């Protein structure tokens, strides 16, 4: 059984996007570089996949270029993540997307395919997002660990990461680690996850 780790960027008030989809508050999309060594597969929702593919493949194509999405060149951590992602299988859960162009990605149609993936052996699965997929997997008790990078800002309103979570979930804190740039990584085990 593979462990599933949902690792996402949130504001202090728990939003993953501003009210108009703003993401400009994320200064570095790869603040959790330790994760790459623990996982061998990524899972994403169909809503976020096209933007994800566009972002990381444009870094691969031109590591020194200014990114359209952020208006700055990628950080070294982002360049490393892009080459890692280029070698790591990505499973995209979507009922509408056709086959993606990135060689490491494949589309699956149902959450049962994700459950089957988890039943396999090997390193952990990195659940990249978005909010809908994370909520679905939490509701099905398929997430073992949550790793939230809390960014130093409040938005007041926006898209809540856990908006579709349907019932109360008690968590166990593993660690809270301050990082550079006033970030804090909060790491929790869910009750669905394996006890240690």
């Amino acid at each position: 059984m593979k462990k599933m780790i949902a690792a996402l960027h949130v504001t202090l008030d728990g939003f993953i996007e501003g009210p108009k989809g703003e993401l400009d508050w994320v200064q570095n999309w790869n603040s959790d570089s330790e994760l790459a060594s623990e996982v061998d597969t990524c899972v994403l929702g169909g809503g976020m996949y096209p933007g994800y593919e566009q972002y990381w493949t444009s870094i691969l194509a031109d590591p020194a270029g200014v990114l359209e999405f952020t208006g700055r060149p990628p950080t070294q951590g982002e360049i490393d993540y892009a080459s890692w992602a280029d070698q790591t299988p990505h499973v995209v859960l979507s009922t509408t997307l056709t086959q993606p162009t990135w060689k490491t990605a494949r589309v699956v149609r149902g959450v049962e395919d994700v459950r089957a993936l988890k039943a396999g052996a090997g390193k952990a699965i990195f659940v990249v997002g978005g909010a809908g997929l994370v909520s679905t997997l939490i509701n099905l008790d398929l997430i073992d660990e949550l790793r939230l990078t809390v960014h130093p800002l409040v938005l007041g309103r926006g898209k809540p990461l856990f908006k579709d979570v349907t019932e109360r979930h008690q968590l166990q804190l593993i660690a809270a680690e301050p990082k550079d740039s006033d970030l804090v990584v909060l790491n929790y085990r869910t009750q669905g996850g394996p006890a240690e």
Partner: protein
Amino acid sequence: MRKLFAFMVTTLDGYYEGQNQEFDWPNVDDAFLDFSVNQLREVGVLLFGRVTYEGMAAYWPSDDARKNAPEVADLMNSIPKLVFSTTLTEARWQNTTLVTDDVEATVSSLKDKPGGDLAVFGSSRLTVGLIGHGLVDELRVMVNPVLLGVGHSLLSGLAGCVRLELLRATTYRSGNVLLCYHPDQP
């Protein structure tokens, strides 16, 4: 010039209460009570909005509170308090003054006076207003290890994004994490 800090207890999904005002989820252990006592000892005046005031005024003078958390109850009852409201006609909790005047002017002039810290507990709407006026020096959020899915967001109604500087992060055995920030001035 004294400091004003805002203290809120939230879930990991950023709610200070559930959709139906549920507040049965906060972890209250000895470490939390110790933290509360130490925090209150720094406070000169407690500031409340009406809703939080009503909840606290009903609880802290009660026998239950005196039994479960005697030291906290003593401090909560004895520290001078202000409640900002345009609908209340009186404030009966001991050492409480009802303020119907302008919040910004009242708090600004209080900050200029000597004494212990000013502290806002809970009171989401009051905190949003004070952050907007640049009057909050420190935002302290006690994040509890629980997800509710739906609830009332800690600072909803904020006019826009407010950037923060991390001051410290403290971990408790209960799984609570206290995150303290300095808000950038608007």
